[in-house]
């Protein structure tokens, strides 16, 4: 975990603070406590936390995307979700009073702040992290997971893929017609819980129907409207 330490940024100047757990924090003076936090950089593929390891603290992502997954014996990892800037990794294990329940690794260069376990109670007691913000955060996460449970259980893989592509599209590159997807076929197969070969087959069908395109390892949504109809389970 001892990665390159960055010069201290300070939470009061942080650009993603208003979408993080610290969004409703009482005032900047409370952020003095954060002098002890570590600002770290991870390269692609480096692990932030490992499933089953003892809980030592949580990460708040400043930039980059992190793959959150359950390692599966003799199979590919099962991806639970992709965490983006502002999200907190591992905080649930603090409240469940247990070891980390998933692994997290960087999908590219990731900058993240690490808050050690002994400081978490202090963060709540001094009002830096409000209880309401924590509750909202967990509600959002559960909602996302429960929707995916229903999709996994009930939707055909093609509809599930369509739904996933809509959920994962990169808003920054979105225009009316075309949207980029930053994830590989392998990632998508590991999220849905199917094989890469089967996902290639389904993607090919969508490419033939001109709903998506696949060039230079990049997926693009060409027809969001048709994809949305497909995501709802329509044939």
């Amino acid at each position, binding site marked *: 975990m001892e990665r390159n330490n960055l010069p201290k940024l300070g939470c009061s100047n942080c650009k993603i603070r208003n979408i993080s757990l610290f969004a409703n924090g009482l005032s900047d003076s409370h952020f003095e406590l954060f002098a002890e936090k570590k600002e770290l950089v991870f390269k692609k593929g480096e692990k932030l936390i490992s499933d089953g390891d003892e809980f030592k603290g949580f990460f708040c992502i400043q930039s980059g995307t992190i793959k959150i997954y359950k390692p599966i014996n003799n199979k590919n990892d099962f991806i639970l979700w992709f965490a983006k800037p502002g999200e907190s990794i591992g905080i649930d294990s603090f*409240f469940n009073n247990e070891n980390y329940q*998933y692994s997290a690794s960087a999908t590219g260069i990731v900058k993240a702040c690490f808050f050690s376990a002994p400081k978490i109670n202090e963060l709540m007691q001094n009002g830096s992290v409000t209880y309401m913000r924590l509750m*909202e955060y967990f509600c959002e996460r559960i909602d996302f997971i429960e929707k995916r449970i229903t999709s996994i259980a*009930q939707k055909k893989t093609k509809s599930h893929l369509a739904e996933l592509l809509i959920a994962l599209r990169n808003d920054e590159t979105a225009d009316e017609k075309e949207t980029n997807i930053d994830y590989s076929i392998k990632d998508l197969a590991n999220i849905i819980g199917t094989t890469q070969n089967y996902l290639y087959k389904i993607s090919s069908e969508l490419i033939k129907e001109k709903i998506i395109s696949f060039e230079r390892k990049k997926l693009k949504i060409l027809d969001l409207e048709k994809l949305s109809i497909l995501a709802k389970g329509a044939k």
Partner: protein
Amino acid sequence: MHSKLKKHEAPNCENCTERGSSIFCDLHATDLNKLSEHKAYNTYKKGQSIFLEGNQPQGLFCIYSGKVKIHKFGDDGKEQIVRFARKGNVLGYRALLSGGAYFATATALEETTVCFFPKAIYMQVLLANPDLCLQTIKLLASDLKMAEHLMTNMAQKHVRERIAEALILLIEYYGLEDDNVTINTILTREDIGNMVGTTTETSIRVLSDFNKEKIIRLAGKRIGILNLEQLEKVANVSLKPNSDQKPNK
């Protein structure tokens, strides 16, 4: 729906026998009395819905007795059970906390009595009590863990493993009857199918296989566990979900 409800006099929260296992365990008498003064107390028959997915929440429900399933409906109207609840558990808190509509539907699995706390009173007590906030956060963290566990199983495990694990979850959650064999809840084959994301036919077939293999004993809708060790082996259980609504401190 409400015309069918039985009305009773509500027990005071301070004297409630289930309070120790609920999120209200650490509340002071003043707050408990405030909750008691404003609450309603209703009994729902088996199959009656306590609240419906998509409706706006008016308050918080707390189960006094009985069993409840929490389920969502897919785009084609097919049911998916995401969680179960038992006495002492609260229902509908996520919609209240996130300010949106109910995420799922809650339906009584047997005659169930619930207390209902109006939104304004509950939020007033919640915001004034850091302990209650912390209990609620722990409850949400535990729900999240269970949901992630269920999702991973759905995607990775074979239907036979999933049904075996669903039975183990029911034993952990509702326990066994006095005979130490029969699971202390009655679920239809359709419910079991909707728990693990399979059809009623497959659910019937797999349970029947377990019955033939003498892992379980089927007697109508009642399911007895004859060989728990073998059931755990079939389920390939590596992690037992924490089903207690009041997580450990």
